């Protein structure tokens, strides 16, 4: 938690502690992985004990779960939703299909590599990941936040041009608003 390379002030420590223990997850089931989210949030697995809870709109959310494959049509919405979220914000790529396309490696309508389009903090592999691995993913994200390393949003801001270029390669019609912060 407190090491030489990444010394945190006490304020940062408190910030990160609360951030890691209070993750508002955006209610957006982008793919089939969303079917395991109810299970993750309900009685047997109960992710709420980790402070994970649903948020209805991107303005309130910290955490965007890309639950599985992302078709290009959804990608546009995901980018929009991601840009509407407030910093700091985290992304978990969920399932093999976000990592390398998974079983949709030759599908013309799903993207293969999520982190080329939006910054991903944690990947959870599996098709589909069990609730246990989802919770393991949450834990991993919490570890990163506590260490102050979950800085996907900063990366996105800094390399916006690169991300935009990648996004525009897939999305032909580009209606998104400017993202300048």
């Amino acid at each position, binding site marked *: 938690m407190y090491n030489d390379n990444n010394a945190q002030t006490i304020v940062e420590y408190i910030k990160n502690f609360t951030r890691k223990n209070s993750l508002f997850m955006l209610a957006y089931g982008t793919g089939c992985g969303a079917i395991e989210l109810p299970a993750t949030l309900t009685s047997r697995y109960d992710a709420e004990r980790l402070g994970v809870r649903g948020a*209805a709109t991107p303005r309130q959310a910290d955490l965007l779960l890309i639950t599985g494959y992302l078709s290009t049509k959804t990608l546009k919405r995901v980018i929009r939703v991601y840009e509407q979220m407030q910093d700091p914000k985290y992304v978990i790529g969920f399932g093999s299909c976000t990592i390398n396309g998974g079983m949709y490696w030759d599908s013309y309508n799903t993207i293969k590599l999520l982190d080329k389009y939006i910054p991903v903090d944690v990947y959870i592999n599996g098709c589909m990941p069990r609730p246990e691995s989802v919770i393991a993913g949450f834990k991993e994200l919490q570890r990163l936040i506590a260490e102050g390393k979950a800085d996907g949003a900063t990366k996105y801001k800094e390399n916006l041009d690169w991300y935009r270029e990648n996004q525009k390669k897939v999305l032909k019609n580009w209606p998104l608003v400017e993202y300048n912060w």
Partner: protein
Amino acid sequence: MNTILFQLSGALATILLAFTVGMFYGGIRRKIIARIQNRVGPPIYQNFLDVIKLYSKDTSIHHGAMQHMGPVFAITASITSLMFIPVLNGDGWFWFKNLNFSGDLIFLVYMMVFGSLGMALGAGQTGNPNSAIGVTRGLSQMVGYEIPFVMSMVALMAQFHTTSITGLMNIQMQENTWLMFSNPFAFIAAVLAMLGMFHYSPFDIVHAPAEVASGPVSEFGGKYLGLMMSSGSIFAFVKLTLFVDVFMGGAANLIELVIKTFALYLIPVLYGVVSPRYRTEQAITYFWKWPLFFGILAILWASF
């Protein structure tokens, strides 16, 4: 000068108390609901974490001055209502005397509306249709539950010839009884109205996620949402304290206060866990049936 400082520090202590208690109640509510739902649930201090996290969000957006001020209106209403409610019986513990001028009931009823209307204006400026729909639902429902609530209050005022909370509390202390026994109908009407006031299920149509995302707060995030959550906690405490003061004889010390408010708080929480949600017009007609009937009974009881 001394008295002003004294009052101010007392006011600050009250705000802190209300905030802490409200937050913990929220946490306990989540815990209770989780237990009923066969879950472990978050720790009871979870709401503190949520609020601190929301305040420590780095960026925030607003759609204009009214949205910026909406949460401020809300917290102003909560804190001002708190300031004019006697927290403890009689002189109580010296710190919690507040600025109250014996806490006038009519004033409080109006002060409670102040926040929702300010909040509604803030939500209106976002331009999000979900917010506007949520607001119309909330205001319509408010007309529903305020009527039985005011009826029970009027019944009490009529029965005991005082319009101030302190007056009602003094009567309870002198006669050594609780008003919920002196005028049971008023209590029933008020509790039924309280179900609506808390906006918990079945009257949570205002921010029903499955319908209007989260309603008025759709566009609020970060510090704005944090301020609103704080305001909500304080407001929950205000409502509970008001009910305890009026119906349950007030509280002599903080422990008694916490016990009584918590007992009262369990009613909307437990009722909410097992009920689906009413649609707006169903909610209004609900309030204008039995609660209204009990309200009329209460006034009759009071006047004869």
